[in-house]
């Protein structure tokens, strides 16, 4: 499994493999050290010299055009932790530059530094060739840098114009002039923003465009987008990418933070990868594969995808019939949030629920967990009627629960890990005996979970809040799996989790599935849904409106159904499927096999892809 190594100028950012002595010599020592955690066969990642965002170490680029942003040797230490270490990134003007890295790799800190929210301890920032120092975001804005945060910062009860003008009143006033300017920007970059609409009437994608416009209105020429696609469905992502291309054509520089590999590959002109707080390499999106990128981010070879044989049995595990829930919304009007939901999950089956967030997924989960009272319907687990039972009894009956919001529903943040291990299973061994707790047993078992599930922590007495998101999630999964669940409800199990932990989590779910676990999977990540599920149902406005076989559907068609545009059984046409397969195959190129497995419609996500003859044995 070797891909060609494109020759290139002395590699600064991507150290070659240790066997290749010569080029190793021109690396600073700490880079060598830093790279050594990667396996030996790690050199075959295609890094090309064609990457324009590239200049030999330390010096400002001597190329024809000055770079829009040059970060050199950025180091940021927080007491006890080095968040960024010797980061070098060059962003060319008028390009979309993707910044990739696992959660906690230091992307956010770096962008906060660039946006003036934090000061670097070492290193320099040059904007358009000029050395600058930012002490507040206002300094950065004055230099033409704008940031669109992951969570929108818009006032719902104001119009688009009012939101854009808010805080920038001195620029073009608040009247007709401002509106004209907004129109102008909107037309110039093809944003299609309607200035007089109330923000509360806008969808997520429109809100995002308003945010972008807000930043452009303030004169930004360098745009930082923090995980902009996290909240969008595929069609909206495509629209956003069209916008980005328009922006680029108008000379705006876009820095795009993401860890979704195929998105980065499709839109970026250059890619920088950050791992453990330092730049580990730049990659050319035209030659690098998704799998190679993932490996760069994780710093280790990912587990190979395996043959997926159907483990679905004929035994019913969960049966939900005629579920209906109405509850009052914010205005106090009674709304039907779930209507006539019926589904069955068999032993060994993963049922995926696709849907735009807020269409009843959360309520469905809470209804099955017994956290919401039902207006009608029944829930049966393994022949046992759970309808009248409370949450605890349902958990004891064998429902494992990976909640959507782990901070609100899955953890006691200020409690030590071993107490978090008890949470949700207080009445079960090894956490209690009779009515008494068994702290010793819980501690022992927490230690086991920490080891088996690779929860990175210095000990089990630290609070859950001190772990990173991925490690918190691993602890939750370890806890839920430790009680031999019959049904696992996994709501966005890999949200906010880095690629390495993601692969691990998927593998854990699969191996439990092989042992007969039934899984209800809810995810906004369609690739995850298609890759993991045996059956997919689409939820729209509280109803299950469509179903699909993951082997014969593409993410795009699923996305269409999620907007309510398609109903019944959806099946993608053969061409689109083949194309998706090709993308998936590219992802597994390094593994030496083309994707033709049941999950071929899936993605670039490594474990989601197709068969690998060597694995799964």
């Amino acid at each position, binding site marked *: 499994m070797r891909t060609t190594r494109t020759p290139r100028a002395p590699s600064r950012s991507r150290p070659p493999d240790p066997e290749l002595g010569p080029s190793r010599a021109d690396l600073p020592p700490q880079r060598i*050290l*830093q790279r*050594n*955690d990667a396996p030996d066969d790690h050199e075959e990642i295609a890094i090309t010299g064609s990457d324009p965002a590239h200049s030999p170490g330390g010096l400002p680029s001597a190329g024809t055009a000055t770079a829009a942003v040059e970060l050199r040797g950025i180091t940021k230490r*927080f*007491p*006890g*932790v*080095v968040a960024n270490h010797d980061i070098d990134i060059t962003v060319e003007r008028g390009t979309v530059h993707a910044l990739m890295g696992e959660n906690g790799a230091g992307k956010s800190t770096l962008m906060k530094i660039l946006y003036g929210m934090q000061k670097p301890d070492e290193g320099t920032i040059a904007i358009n060739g000029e050395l600058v120092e930012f002490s507040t975001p206002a300094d950065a804005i004055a230099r033409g840098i704008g940031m669109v945060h992951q969570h929108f910062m818009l006032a719902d009860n104001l119009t688009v114009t009012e939101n854009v003008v808010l805080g920038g009143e001195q620029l073009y006033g608040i009247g007709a002039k401002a509106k004209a300017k907004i129109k102008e920007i909107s037309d110039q970059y093809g944003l299609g923003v309607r200035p007089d609409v109330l923000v509360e009437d806008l969808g997520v994608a429109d809100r995002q465009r308003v945010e972008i416009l807000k930043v452009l209105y303030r004169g930004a020429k360098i745009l930082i987008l923090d995980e902009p696609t996290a909240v969008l469905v595929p069609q909206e992502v495509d629209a956003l990418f069209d916008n980005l291309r328009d922006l680029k054509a108008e000379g705006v520089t876009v820095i795009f933070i993401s860890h979704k590999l195929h998105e980065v590959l499709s839109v970026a002109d250059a890619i920088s990868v950050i791992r*453990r707080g330092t730049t580990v390499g730049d990659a050319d999106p035209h030659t690098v594969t998704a799998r190679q990128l993932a490996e760069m981010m994780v710093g280790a070879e990912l587990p190979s995808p395996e043959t997926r044989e159907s483990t679905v049995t004929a035994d019913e595990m969960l049966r939900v019939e005629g579920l209906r829930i109405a509850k009052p919304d914010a205005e106090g009007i009674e709304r039907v949030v779930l209507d006539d939901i019926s589904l069955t999950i068999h032993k060994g089956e993963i049922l995926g629920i696709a849907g735009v967030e807020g269409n009843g997924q959360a309520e469905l989960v809470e209804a099955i*967990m017994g*956290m919401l009272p039902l207006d009608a319907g029944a829930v049966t687990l393994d022949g046992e009627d759970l309808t009248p039972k*409370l*949450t*605890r*009894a*349902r*958990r*004891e009956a064998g429902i494992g*629960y990976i*909640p959507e919001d782990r901070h*609100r*529903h*899955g*953890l*006691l*943040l*200020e*409690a030590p890990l071993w*107490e978090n291990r*008890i*949470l*949700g*299973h*207080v*009445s079960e061994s090894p956490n*209690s005996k009779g*009515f*008494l*707790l068994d*702290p010793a047993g819980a501690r022992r078992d927490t*230690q086991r979970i*920490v*080891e088996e599930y*690779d*929860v*990175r*922590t*210095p*000990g*089990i*007495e*630290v*609070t859950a*809040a*001190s*772990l990173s998101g991925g490690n918190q999630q691993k602890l939750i999964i370890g806890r839920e799996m430790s009680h031999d669940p019959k049904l696992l409800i996994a709501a966005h199990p890999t949200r906010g989790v880095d690629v390495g932990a993601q692969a691990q989590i998927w593998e854990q779910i699969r191996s439990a599935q092989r042992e007969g676990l039934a899984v209800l999977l809810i995810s906004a990540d369609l690739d995850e849904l298609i890759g993991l599920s045996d059956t997919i149902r689409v939820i729209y406005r509280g109803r299950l409106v469509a179903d699909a076989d993951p082997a014969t559907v593409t993410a795009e068609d699923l996305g269409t159904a999620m907007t309510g545009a398609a109903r019944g059984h959806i099946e993608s046409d053969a061409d689109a499927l083949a194309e998706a397969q090709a993308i998936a195959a590219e992802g597994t190129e390094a593994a030496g096999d083309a994707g033709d497995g049941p999950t071929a419609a899936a993605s670039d996500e490594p474990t989601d892809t197709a068969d690998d003859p060597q694995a799964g044995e």
Partner: protein
Amino acid sequence: MTSPNPAAKRSLRERFDGERILLGLAAPVLAVLLSAVICGVLLAISGKNPFDAFQVMWDYGTASDGQVLTLNRTTTYYIAGCAAAFGFRMNLFNIGVDGQYKLGALFAAYVGSQVDLPAVLQIPLLLVTAMLIGGMWASIAGLLKVYRGVSEVISTIMLNAIATAVVGLLLVPGIFAPGNGGGSSNAIQTAPISQSSHFFAIPTAGGDLYGFLFIAIVIGVAFQFTLSRTKFGFDLRATGRSETAAKASGVNVKRMVITSMVVSGAIAGLIGLPELMQHSYYFGQSIQPGLGFIGISVALLGRNTPIGIAFSALLFAFLDVAGTRLPLRGDFPQEIVAVMQGTIVICVVVAYELVRRYGLKRQQQKVGAELAAQAAAAAKKEVSA
């Protein structure tokens, strides 16, 4: 990723604990010192020598009669603190301790005056009566919260006012107070409780030490045991830390609210009993008011833990007892003690929050640093290998 070496692990744990204790102590100690300084300044401004005042208090606190008085009062304050703390541990703000203890004590006094069983039965009867009444009164707030969404803060404050009215109503001669000639004076009060209702006391050189102190200790031990060792206690703490997580984990939050409100009220019902069964032997207008609010302060200062409450109850009792000496010995205003108690509570609330945030942040950094060190060590190992 965890250290396979158990010794290393334990030493790490010890370090965390040591620091936690230090952090835990820092806040109350600082708060007490700060309030002493503030009161000293106040005294100095009013033209008195603060050191003399502190000397007077200290002298009385170290005298044996002062000590007995302090301990007796500590008993009452400790029970009051536990009553409030039990609710606080679940984020239930039971302001109604005041009303609960008054009603509990009134009914206990009435039962004690009407029933005359052998002491082994009589005393438990009075305890249970007081707890039942306190718990029932508190359950009103719990039920309102669960079924009507009424904030327990509002309802318990109102129930306090209602409790005062109810006590007034029941103490009318002919109901709980004797019809005529019950007392030698015109004070309205219940008939004295029977001899068998008297709780044992330990005679000391400084006076009688309330045997009820042991009941207080039992309450403290049971409190600690329930919270840290039982499933119920875990559910309660989980609900206090995050109601949403507790609900998702299967805690029946509604039932927990009612249960803990009732338990808090039941403990509150006992607050008036040391005085009733060891000193006054009847319930009348002379019953000490405001014990419920002192209990809230004591619980805050004691951080809602049984040990902490013991220390803070002791401190508050000492200040109260020693404060009574101030006007007698040198014309100091006794009110300075109330000022001191107030400033302690304000300072301690601020200090705890600061320490909590600092501790959380510090641990996050520590974990980050340790993981980084582990990663570095692993990398080094690979280099050498």
